[in-house]
């Protein structure tokens, strides 16, 4: 932990990841421009920029939204999840260029305030086919701005994890606005079946992956656990991989039971940083490591190693033969609990 805030906490993986993002964005823009100019050489540079960056932003947003569910379904996607924040800021920059050029081309050259013009140049709000779709894009851009501008750790710490999370969950509202913005705009200006096809595939991929993940989590939540004198039967030792955990729902709280070095410990499954699923992480250097951003907790007391101060609730386990049992009553956050030896 540093004694001040840095612009970006770089490491070699983040640098490599950012290089991939920038190169991919540049390649997409060049490819989009080349294909557009081959098939429609009369396209103006402003229109080209608007369409290239608009389509780039929506493709990036679709990728951002599928990273979460993909990482829940397959741990190979976790490194991408870990770096998702930079992808989000890059997506906002693409959306901002799209919005900025659109406002300049369509609203800034008259004598009306450009922002006022976005809302009033087309007052056909009761029409579906002629709805002023740019308003939807503008509101979505405001939400994306709020998210990108608060992506620094300063805001996570000072707004509280709860407020920060709520603010960033607004991405789904922004996504809905962008989908409406795209389809209404496409109907009015661009009728290429290819464009509409790509948008539709993106939307259904995002929606179906979220549904699959929700069903998977609902299965964990609805799992009935057998009770025995106040203790709940969890699973056998062999059902948990070494240095990994299994997640169970105990009294409506998700709990992760970890197996490491011949010991078993149970902690609350929710990371204090951004609510990441600790049970989907693994033990690294003796600490439970959150799969989302690498926050760490000691398995025996749920405390982050000093100088960090995060704490999660702990639970007592007992063994009967090979079977693990859990006491459903959680201890206070950071309470030391003797690990179960096997």
């Amino acid at each position, binding site marked *: 932990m540093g*004694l001040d805030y840095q612009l970006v906490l770089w490491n070699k993986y983040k640098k490599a990841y950012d290089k991939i993002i920038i190169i991919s964005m540049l390649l997409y823009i060049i490819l989009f421009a080349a294909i557009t100019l081959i098939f429609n050489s009369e396209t103006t540079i402003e229109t080209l920029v608007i369409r290239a960056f608009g389509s780039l932003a929506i493709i990036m947003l679709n990728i951002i939204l599928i990273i979460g569910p993909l990482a829940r379904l397959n741990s190979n996607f976790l490194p991408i999840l870990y770096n998702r924040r930079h992808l989000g800021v890059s997506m906002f920059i693409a959306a901002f260029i799209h919005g900025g050029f659109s406002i300049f081309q369509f609203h800034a050259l008259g004598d009306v305030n450009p922002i*006022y013009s976005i*809302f009033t140049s087309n007052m056909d709000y009761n029409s579906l086919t002629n709805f002023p779709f740019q308003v939807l894009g503008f509101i979505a851009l405001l939400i994306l*701005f*709020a998210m990108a501008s*608060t992506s620094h750790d300063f805001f996570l710490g000072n707004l509280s994890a709860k407020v920060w999370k709520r603010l960033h969950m607004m991405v789904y509202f922004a996504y809905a606005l962008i989908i409406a913005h795209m389809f209404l705009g496409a109907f009015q200006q661009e009728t290429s079946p290819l464009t509409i096809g790509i948008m539709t595939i993106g939307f259904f991929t995002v929606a179906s992956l979220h549904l699959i993940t929700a069903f998977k989590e609902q299965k964990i939540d609805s799992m009935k656990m057998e009770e025995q004198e106040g203790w709940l039967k969890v699973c056998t030792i062999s059902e948990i991989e070494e240095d990994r955990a299994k997640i169970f729902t105990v009294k409506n709280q998700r709990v992760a039971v970890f197996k490491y070095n011949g010991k078993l410990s149970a902690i609350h499954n929710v990371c204090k940083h951004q609510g990441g699923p600790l049970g989907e992480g693994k033990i690294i250097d003796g600490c439970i490591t959150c799969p989302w951003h690498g926050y760490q907790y000691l398995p025996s007391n749920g405390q982050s190693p000093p100088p960090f101060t995060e704490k999660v609730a702990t639970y007592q386990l007992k063994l009967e033969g090979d079977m693990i049992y859990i006491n459903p009553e959680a201890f206070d956050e950071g309470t030391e609990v003797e690990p179960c030896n096997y």
Partner: protein
Amino acid sequence: MEIIINIFLLILSVYFIIGLLFGFYFLFRGASKIDPLMENTKTKVRFLLFPGVVVTWPFLIGRLFKSKTP
């Protein structure tokens, strides 16, 4: 409809103007009262944080007031 648009844009403008004014005070004075890490934070980082402060000023004002309450 035009009335609704005018009210919405007025609220939006007022929100961002207050945010802009608060942003300068907060980043160069107030922030270190609620976050000790801000004391040694460089000016370029403060400018990076500026847009986010403009957006979230109601929450940060709340935190500033809470920090002054004994």
